């Protein structure tokens, strides 16, 4: 029943080893982005003699920023709409208890189980007939539809725990359903909303399959399509390609690192059930 100091140190060593192993590919990517044309084909983790020239090459490339602009527009719109629609729908299902609320909940929740690959063929046809191929809406619409399933699951879970007494008090004070939602319920379920926002941002920012078939026009392409675009031109210049990859990774990793406190906190706080 004794726990020696040795095993304690051993646990830390093991944990640090796992973390380093998990970081090796990222370290390798970043190091490649600082290599010169000769050392970029050297089979080592760290090549030494770092150079900034790859970043100069890449940042001098015009038409680099529009990928990021497109992704910002698509991701932020998706996050906003997903939050709005999930909150409205969750409110009707959880608090208003509309007729058929269980049915609505399970129908939309089923969206969580649908693999996008199984929809991609008719979805492309639908988007084409709606005239929104190569249009932001062609990604925002499906992303929001997919995200609302997860959003509803989380929001309904948070709203189910909301004490009815607070609602009753607000209604007695003359507040409408809309005002109770906006001024009483939404502020209290903010941790759950942040979980949805962060998850949905990462999803929309990183999604590749739909973006590949919807955004065929180069000026409409989003960030996940960049590796494909730059792979050819930088075939003989891996340093520049990996500078692109590193720049791409900075945004979602930075966003997660900055917001992870709320993501983990939100997950810990709420039991999210269907």
């Amino acid at each position, binding site marked *: 029943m004794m726990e020696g100091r040795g095993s304690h140190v051993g646990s830390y060593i093991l944990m640090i080893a796992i973390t380093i192993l998990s970081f090796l590919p990222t370290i390798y990517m970043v190091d490649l982005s600082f290599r010169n044309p000769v050392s970029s084909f050297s089979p080592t983790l760290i090549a030494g003699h770092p150079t900034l020239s790859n970043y100069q090459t890449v940042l001098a490339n015009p038409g680099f920023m529009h990928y990021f602009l497109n992704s910002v527009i698509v991701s932020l719109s998706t996050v906003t709409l997903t939050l709005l629609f999930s909150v409205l729908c969750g409110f009707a299902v959880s608090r208003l208890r509309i007729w058929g609320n269980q049915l609505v909940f399970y129908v939309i929740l089923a969206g969580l189980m649908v693999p996008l690959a199984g929809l991609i063929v008719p*979805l492309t046809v639908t988007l084409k007939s709606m005239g929104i191929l190569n249009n932001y809406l062609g990604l925002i619409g499906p992303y929001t539809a997919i995200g609302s399933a997860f959003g509803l699951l989380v929001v309904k879970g948070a709203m189910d725990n909301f004490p009815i007494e607070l609602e009753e008090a607000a209604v007695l004070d003359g507040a409408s359903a809309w005002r109770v939602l906006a001024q009483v319920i939404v502020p209290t379920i903010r941790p759950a909303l942040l979980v949805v926002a962060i998850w949905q941002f990462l999803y929309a920012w990183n999604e590749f399959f739909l973006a590949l078939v919807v955004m065929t026009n180069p000026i409409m392409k989003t960030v996940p399509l960049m590796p494909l675009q730059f792979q050819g031109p930088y075939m003989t210049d891996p340093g520049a390609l990996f500078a692109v990859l590193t720049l791409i990774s900075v945004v979602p990793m930075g966003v997660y*690192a900055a917001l992870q406190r709320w993501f983990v906190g939100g997950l810990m706080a709420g039991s999210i059930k269907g």
Partner: protein
Amino acid sequence: MHTTPYGSSTRWRGWIYVVPALTLFIMFMLIPIVENILNSLSRQGVTGVTWSNYRAMFHDPIFGVSLKNSIIWLVLTTFIQMLLGFFIAVLLESRIRRGRGMFRTLLFLPMAITPTVIAIVFSNIYAPDYGLLFGVFKSLGLVNHFPALLASRQTVTYALILVNVWQWVGFYVLMYSVGMSNISREVLDAARVDGAVGWQRLRHIIFPLLRSSHMSLMILGAIQALQQFPLIYLMTEGGPANSSQVLGTYIFQTAFLENNMNYASAISIVLLLIALLVAGVQLVLTRGNFAIGGGQ
């Protein structure tokens, strides 16, 4: 069923709140599924309903490989990620006192990286002559034994699965950590005891307490595995000789490269049926209680 303070009329009028989410669901999920069914039952030059797209699958070896690989992906990624995630989470939650949050964050970070970036980084790691793995073999003096993992039909799918595991394991650690936050400190401390007693407690006390975490991770893992596309598309394009093809990549190939929309729709239906089966199994196992994060 409890009442609401808003009066009974809102039970009808409240439907207005559901309209936006439901509209998007119908437009971008329900209609495509129905269209898939209709498309899969028709064929160019054939009038009326035909089952020929489904019959064609039985004579299509690439479809067979894709189906087999999709199932390997589903089973292996979910199993390995759960196993590693569980043990790392136990290590983290029961033995690490300081820096627990930092480890969780660092392990989760690969989840934030765009899969297409990951695909190219790992293509480079696996590459012969200049890749990182080659460098490891070289420094060990084993150059002659270097396996070109992506070029061999036997290893390609497993090499791809390994990348998926690398990316997702941090998510599993986080979800198990969240699940363990509901378990009392004394129970967790029991897992710290080394040797057979500790192992028994881990197996018979902690593992069963995480039942809802196991369930939700099993479902999320299965669905994520069925979704996998960018790694395969960018690293192997389903090759060599279609040996790493999965249903998702094969749907893409038949629909957008071979322009055979009807056949692609039929394969899509198979994929959707597998997802439905997974969802059904989950529904039975959890008796309708699907949970993400903490709570029992």
